[in-house]
């Protein structure tokens, strides 16, 4: 572990130094934000682009005078995907580094753990990359805000699309942990609401990280379902697709997926990608997307010049997170914790190159646009998301009243 910590420590110092370089000229002390995320191991495929987007926005903010005349600065810590490591880092950042706020998370477990610490320590925690709805809903409190999509919104966007299609019998394959259950519960409940004759014929719960899916593939083939939802993700979903393909599963049962449309899965799959699958994704390359959002192409170019890589959804989330934090401080006219919380609880809206993000006051939850498309091969034989349809999160998300009910129910449970 030591070597990795040391390497990332050095790396983080270098990046922070690079990001804050031009700021040195400004005389005022920076606003410091402790950023805890998984910067080693298997989550780096998401967190590296995320950090790139975060630092890109930080540089833009600081180059144009910072926030309230002060530069902002992120101090990075690696949580190794473990809640206890994350809380240790949070204590160190608050106790020794004297940061003003905490931010970060990719794992939902980590996000919930830091949130619990923040509540107890009365520090504002701005959760970023993790997606569980529990963060701001069931387990929400005033010391936590969430700057990116939650499961509820993109799963409902996907269910909205599914409801327009003639499928009645549904099956699913979801990893057997918090996220997998969250996705399937939201999807099946919302689809039932939109399409009451929908019927669940089969359920599959592989363990998280399972590498052999052949028995589930056989089960799905024999389920008699018209369509199925998958919420396995990342390396596990790639393995699932590769194993299901020779069985002809995707020709027989229509494949809906919570994540296969992201480039971290589509690109490695290449010619084995599941053409026809319906899935959400950040399709910045799509003509329709670029027409709807004229500033998107320029942002993509800027990101690519900086990162030497194409952007991902995570990169856009990192970018948005830095601006949302800065905006809240600007509105509070102070970096004081209580004032910034008040700014979050009053809510605000920000325009991004990919559309409007609403920070809702009642739950301090971000509501961004949602995109759902179909996996196709482009002219160069690369799998992409096509026929992308946009729904804004505000049209599908649970209302403030529903959130209040969830919080009350969770409080009741704890008693």
């Amino acid at each position, binding site marked *: 572990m030591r*070597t990795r910590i040391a*390497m990332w420590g050095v790396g983080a110092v270098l990046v922070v130094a690079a990001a804050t370089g031009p700021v040195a000229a400004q005389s005022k002390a920076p606003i410091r934000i402790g950023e805890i995320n998984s910067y*080693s191991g298997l989550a*780096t495929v998401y967190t590296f682009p995320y950090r790139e987007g975060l630092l890109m926005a930080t540089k833009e903010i600081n180059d144009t005078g910072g926030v309230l005349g002060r530069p902002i600065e992120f101090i990075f810590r690696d949580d190794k995907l473990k809640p206890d490591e994350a809380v240790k880092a949070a204590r160190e950042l608050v106790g020794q580094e004297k940061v003003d706020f905490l931010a970060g998370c990719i794992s939902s477990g980590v996000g919930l753990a830091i949130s619990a610490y923040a509540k107890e320590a009365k520090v504002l925690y701005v959760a970023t990359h993790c997606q569980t709805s529990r963060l701001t809903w069931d387990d929400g409190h005033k010391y936590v805000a969430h700057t990116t999509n939650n499961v509820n919104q993109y799963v409902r966007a996907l269910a909205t699309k599914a409801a327009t299609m003639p499928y009645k019998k549904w099956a699913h394959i979801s990893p057997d942990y918090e996220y997998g259950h969250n996705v399937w519960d939201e999807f099946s409940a919302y689809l039932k609401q939109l399409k009451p004759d929908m019927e669940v014929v089969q359920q599959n719960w592989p363990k998280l990280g399972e*590498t052999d899916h052949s028995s589930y593939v056989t089960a799905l083939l024999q389920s008699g379902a018209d369509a199925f939802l998958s919420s396995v993700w990342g*390396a596990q979903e790639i393995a699932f697709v590769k*194993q299901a393909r020779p069985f*002809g599963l995707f020709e027989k049962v229509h494949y809906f997926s919570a994540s296969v449309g992201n480039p971290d899965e589509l690109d*490695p799959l290449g010619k084995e990608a599941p053409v026809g699958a319906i899935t959400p994704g950040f399709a910045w390359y799509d003509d329709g997307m670029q027409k709807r959002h004229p500033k998107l192409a320029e942002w993509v170019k800027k990101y690519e010049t900086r990162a030497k890589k194409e952007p991902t959804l995570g990169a856009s989330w990192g970018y948005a997170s830095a601006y949302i934090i800065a905006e809240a401080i600007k509105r509070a006219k102070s970096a004081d914790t209580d004032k910034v919380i008040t700014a979050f609880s009053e809510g605000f809206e920000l325009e991004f190159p990919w559309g409007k993000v609403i920070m809702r006051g009642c739950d301090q939850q971000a509501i961004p646009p949602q995109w759902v498309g179909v996996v196709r091969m482009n002219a160069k034989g690369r799998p992409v998301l096509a026929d992308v349809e946009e729904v804004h999160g505000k049209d599908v998300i649970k209302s403030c009243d529903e959130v209040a009910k969830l919080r009350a129910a969770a409080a009741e449970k704890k008693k």
Partner: protein
Amino acid sequence: MSGLSVGMFLFLVSVGMSLIFGVTRIVNLAHGSFYMVGAYLMVTLVEVLPDRPWAFWLALLVASLGVALLGAVIEVGLLRLIYHRDPLMQLILTFGLILVISTLVLLAWGPDNKSVSRPDALAGSVPIFGQPFPSYYLLVLGLAPVVALGLWLIFYRTRWGMLIRAATVDREMLGALGVNVAALYTQVFAFGSWLAGLGGALAAPTIAVALGMDGDVLTTAFVVVVVGGLGSFAGSFISALLVGLLQSFGILIFPAISIVLLFAIMAVVLVVRPWGLLGRPEQ
């Protein structure tokens, strides 16, 4: 059927681990990392080599040999220095190797998930008992017994194999008889690493090649080796098949406890036969 093919991947990895332990008495925790490096090398080789039918097989050979070379370098450069030390030191060293190798893999290949396409001839499936069965798994089902048979021939029909078997029984005596034990250790370690690399390279087209695959395979391979008997090759074979089948059928019959089942079997074996199914008790 697919349970059998999973068992075959496991066999390749665990027999290498078992072999290394049998001869050098080192529990090589970095064995999963060798498997991961084999898969990553496979990714690069398939990308670099021209898109021809033979390229896949050449890549398989070169990737696994690359891992063998890595194993040899690690044995000569690091492990040789600590054979006489406390076994705990050896564990710490090989554990450290896991971290070093995973960081190096991240630096060399980057954080993105990778994948290897199956060779076109094996991309489809063939009907068996009226059910489609992926032809690539058939290859694995065919190849692993060939490797097993090859191992048996090497161990029981060659002089080198005889020396290895002798080394598992009494190393000092072997050295006293004038055999270059140091060289034998390097060869065995490289050979064991080759098997791990081959397992990784062969598994690459059926999974995503990603960071973290080292840990997944290590845990299962460890169980296989312990259940089969540390240092026993036939034991590894049987126990790999058992674990592979268990993982496939276990999730169908007892989905909730399939993970526990694996370790429960290990626990039972350890209580009843602490030296494993086909292992020999320590003297």
